[in-house]
């Protein structure tokens, strides 16, 4: 049981008449429930588009996305998306950002407040509940963004290069943090990244996409136990292999 991509394709209309931009080509893949899967590929190849299709922000031109055999409905609560640019609502405090989902759902104030406070604690945001995004550091903002998504308990968590704009120390700390959270919850994570080191450190499986129109070139199983040694030999080997495949695509 899991997330299935069946012959997924996406074409955008181009600038000229009759022109089109072919972004995704016949993506066929299964992602087992509860796995941490990274998607990696050359810039602009369509990784983000794929996530947006799963999240329901775009419609596939052909093919389907199924979860446990059923097609995903528009706006389904089974899927959550964490954006690269945090996308926090600047006029809401940390607490109010986190409780946005439950608020929309109609959960009453006390319940959603206490739930949000749970996440504040879980994500080490204590003391910043009433601050506004402009007062938070990049790492904090990303934690708020993730909390905001996870509070809705989606079964599939999509993450679009969430740590891309952070410095490497913060990024490493957040990666470890993410793993801890994930290990307790067991959701499926589909994690788009540029960064091979990151993919190797985090994932059970790495899917490599070709350049546009994107197809799946190769998938790697990363069987290593966690916590992993970033600079250890096993990680290096897998990293080398992935880089080899990637560099072919970048040419």
């Amino acid at each position, binding site marked *: 049981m899991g997330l299935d991509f069946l012959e997924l394709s996406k074409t955008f209309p181009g600038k000229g008449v009759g022109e089109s931009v072919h972004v995704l080509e016949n993506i066929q893949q299964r992602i087992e429930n509860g796995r941490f899967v990274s998607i990696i590929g050359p810039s602009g190849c369509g990784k983000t588009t794929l996530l947006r299709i799963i999240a*329901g922000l775009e419609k596939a031109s052909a093919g389907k996305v199924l979860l446990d055999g059923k097609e995903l409905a528009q706006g389904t609560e089974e899927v*959550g*998306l964490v*954006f690269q640019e945090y996308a926090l*609502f*600047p*006029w*809401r405090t940390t607490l109010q950002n986190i409780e946005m*989902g439950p608020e*929309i759902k109609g959960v009453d104030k006390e319940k959603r407040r206490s739930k949000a406070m749970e996440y504040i604690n879980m994500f080490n945001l204590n003391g910043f509940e009433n601050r506004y995004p402009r007062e938070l550091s990049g790492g904090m903002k990303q934690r708020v963004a993730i909390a905001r998504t996870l509070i809705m308990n989606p079964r599939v968590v999509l993450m679009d290069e969430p740590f891309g704009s952070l410095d490497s120390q913060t990024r490493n700390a957040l990666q470890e943090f993410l793993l801890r959270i994930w290990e307790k919850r067991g959701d499926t994570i589909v994690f788009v990244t540029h960064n091979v080191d990151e993919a190797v450190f985090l994932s059970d499986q790495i899917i490599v996409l070709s350049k546009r129109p994107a197809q799946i070139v190769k998938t790697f199983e990363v069987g290593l136990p966690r916590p992993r040694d970033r600079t250890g030999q096993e990680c290096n080997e897998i990293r080398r292999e992935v880089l080899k495949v990637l560099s072919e695509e970048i040419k």
Partner: protein
Amino acid sequence: MKKEHFLIPLVLILIWQGLSSIQVIPSYKLPSPVEILLGFKDLLILGVPPGNLLHNHVLYSLYRVALGYAIAALLAIPLGLLMGWSSGLLKMIRPLFELVRPIPPLAWIPIAILWFGIGIKSAAFIIFLGAFFPILLNTISGVLSIHPILIEAARTLHAREKDIFLKVLLPGAVPSIFVGMRIGIGIGWMTLVAAEFTGVKEGYGLGYMIMTARDIQRPDEILAGMLVIGVIGLLIDIGLRAIESRMIKWQ
């Protein structure tokens, strides 16, 4: 407000008073500061025309502005949100507004009198015209300036159209709305005084007061009245800014 801010105006006033006292500036062209102060006393105690005291003129003018302005805001803000949200609606309505907008509110006075008579309704209508467009245009631009990613973030949190409207568009556009509101009240206040030049039914209004002072040839009262108008305009703006900074703590 530091002491130095008052130094230059004070020096200018002293020079002015000096020049007036020796009649280098003749008092029928420009009364001296002392004469203006005495004129102000007459406005307060004697009234222009005699019997119509200053505070009543102020109240009537404020009432007219408040009425026209409230209607302008109540119409322009929702309409602006809708027009910012729906580009179809924007394209449809915009040409009409762009045609009407350049017409100075004062040019509407004869028509306003035909439609609404000489009374508070025609004055409020003129104010409405002056305040409506800045509020509308700034609201539209406020919506358009909301990063689309925030709307997508709301969608991934399962927001319906109504939620997006109330929880994203409206709060996101608030800073621009306030800019529009400040511009609108400024124009509204200026327009009111000129609108009252053409006649008020109740015999009260700051514009009417100044015209009467002109009729009875009291330039000292004219200038005192102008000062009152300026000070009130300033206070209104300060008040709006205070409300604004309280509501937009997040910027």
